């Protein structure tokens, strides 16, 4: 008697659970997209009527990261975004499409084309729109223009001041926050002045920081800059905020030492203590 024919049957029986259906959560295509379940989301969008602009937008944004990531997918996404923006360039979907159209050459292509992205971001930045992605275009301009390699420091400074003027008219909280966090960082890294860096970080912080990690680092930077520029009240206030809200941060002892030095001695002493600690 040959037993060999039993083996496939046994394997089939034992592996039955592997063929069970994928229990993807039953959700709308957008909820599936928010969960990162792009294959299911893309299929769901593709089934919706072709004249449904929002579905075409969904199809396009899922194509951006659908695996395997291919040029064909990105080309198709770009075509969909272009068509959506062509029907109305300034409504919710139109602006969103233009923003992600810029993101394709900026971050999604294997060989990026930042100048192509810049053109679209500049167009979006000139819109007088409260849309978060229209205003975010200004943040993208700052990230691209200020960190462009091999440009003279004077030119960086000129761009910085021009962008600061543009950024002053932002009114969408996320855009205000992100723009000012970028500008504060740039001011610090390129040594445009600690007062300038501090003012931008304060503006960003007041717009409302969403993530705890960003918040605690920003509070530390604000307090440190304020201490170094002699704005003791701001430094004290942010050191205290940090201590109150982050009881398990490894920097607490250093912050406490700085706070003690600030509140117990003259203006000169804290600097001395901190320098000694360094």
């Amino acid at each position, binding site marked *: 008697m040959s037993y060999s024919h039993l083996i496939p049957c046994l394997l089939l029986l034992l592996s039955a659970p592997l063929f069970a259906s994928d229990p993807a959560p039953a959700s709308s295509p957008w909820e599936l997209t928010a*969960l990162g379940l792009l294959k299911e989301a893309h299929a769901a969008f593709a089934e919706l009527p072709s004249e449904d602009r929002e579905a075409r937008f969904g199809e396009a944004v899922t194509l951006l990261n659908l695996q395997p990531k291919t040029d064909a997918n990105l080309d198709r996404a770009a075509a969909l975004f272009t068509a959506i923006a062509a029907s109305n360039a300034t409504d919710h979907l139109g602006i969103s499409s233009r923003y992600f159209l810029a993101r394709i050459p900026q971050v999604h292509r294997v060989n990026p084309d930042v100048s192509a992205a810049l053109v679209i971001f500049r167009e979006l930045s000139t819109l007088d729109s409260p849309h978060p992605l229209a205003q975010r275009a200004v943040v993208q301009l700052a990230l691209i223009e200020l960190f462009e390699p091999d440009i003279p420091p004077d030119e960086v400074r000129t761009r910085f001041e021009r962008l600061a003027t543009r950024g002053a008219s932002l009114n969408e909280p996320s855009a205000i926050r*992100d723009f000012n966090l970028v500008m504060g960082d740039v001011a610090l890294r390129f040594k445009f002045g600690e007062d300038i860096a501090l003012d931008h970080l304060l503006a960003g912080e007041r717009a409302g920081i969403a993530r705890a990690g960003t918040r605690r680092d920003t509070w530390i930077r604000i307090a440190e800059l304020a201490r170094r520029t002699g704005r003791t009240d701001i430094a004290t206030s942010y050191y205290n905020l940090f201590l109150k809200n982050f009881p398990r941060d*490894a920097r607490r002892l250093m912050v406490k030492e700085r706070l003690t030095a600030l509140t117990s001695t003259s203006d000169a002493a804290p600097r001395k203590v901190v320098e000694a600690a360094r």
Partner: protein
Amino acid sequence: MNRERILPVIGFALLFACFGIALTQVFKRQRSANNPDEVVIRIAHWQLESGIRDAIDTLARDYERLNPGVRIEQNPIPERIYPSWFKTQLVGGTAPDLIQVGKGSDDETLARFFSPLTEHVEKPNPYNAGTPLAGMPWRDTFVDGLASGESYKPNLLEYYGVPLSMVTIRMYYNVTEWKRILGDTPPPADYDAFVSICERVQAHAQKTGMTIFPIAGSNYGTPWFASQLIGSQTQRLAQRLDDNLLLRPHPTTNALQFLVGRWNLDEPEFINGLVLSRQIGRFAQPGFIQAARDDATFYFVQGRALMIVTGSWDAPSFRSLAPFEVGAFQLPMPSPDHPRFGVGVLGPVSESETPTGASFGLTRASPHPERALDFLHFLSSLEGNGTFSRVSNWLPAVIDVDLPPLVKPFAPVVDGYVNGIGIDVGGGANVSRIVNANLNALFDANADIGKLQDILRTQLPRAVRQDVRRSHKQIGLNTARLDTLLAAQVILNARKHVASEHRRKQSELLEAQTMQELARAWIHHELETLPDTPVPIGD
């Protein structure tokens, strides 16, 4: 029937017997699951260390007493097969209600198979009623506020795990042998006292002919100890390099500073760290750098080494395996007033950001999600986590839990400073490979720090550059991935009936993307300024 014919028959008979037993088990479980009078909650994990199963078992029985009609089944799975078991169970739809997350649980798996716990962590844990934690959001009852470990998934913007414990690294010692060799000498308070103890052990071994080394070394624990020593020596150096005013070193920033020549391996603080590392290497058994973690454990448990460096997770196992009393103390570091090794030191290193672990997620396939969530509340209540810590002798993850005496030595050091820069400049894979491949130059009998420095001087810059480029590329991939999630939140946010939750998520995504792109832009800018290192912006 000859031997050749009978062997396959026996083989198939055994196979069918196993299959039959497995089927019986499945049917028993099915019958049990179909019992309308009984709710079964299954919980699976890979923590096979002694004490953990007992702790979960104790809590399960306590819960069953409180909730007649509920039965808790514990399913410990060996760590080695855990990731594949985990995937198979989830895909097959046979996953337990609660599963430990962290091995094999990438974002897609969590999103597809687990229920987000975000709305629950904002509400109080009902089992904390009548305790000092009453009324507090569940999230805030954990030592890390669920910000570390496997709890919060920043890309998914949801909480998926609830932790039961956390771990710290300590120097364990054989109390019995310690007393015999060192008398009443207390555990060392600083590095010099530690060196003195190690030298006394070596002298004792030499004098008596006994085979006992001060430290059970391995390629796991000893390099970790060495990296802590180097980090202590470079605390002030790290603060000097803190251009971003964050009061802590940042691996990629330090790597870029290394590449542009802001600091190098000849810094006196760095050399001091290497000297200390070489010294501790000489207190371990010869050839230890070839020894794995288990080899060092055997050395220690068999009494051939007085001390060993490892994590708090090993404490219960040591206590059950070792035929002697086991103690533990913090890794000894030079203090700032040390005449030679204090110059770069700020003070003891803070462990207050120790991440939590042993986190459990709730599967979507759970037939009784409310009951499973209730059991999770029970496990992580002040009382429940206290029981967990008392029975397992692991550190708790919940605040205000009284530490049992055996757990106290592992309590994280809270009043301390940020550590400095380690030998693994930037923390990338290429640098780690070079450092690990050359640890013998630091630890072998003829260790020569100058030789190690020469090797690192030659090989590190290229490796650091490769790692920074890889980091640049990785950030690019991450930020590109966020685009699709962002688009979803922008659309969902525009739907007024669900807007507030999506507004929060949209804001978090935008901020996360900004911070990533800011870091990426700076890396690109700095790499482009280095000679002969053109980096395509998409690299």
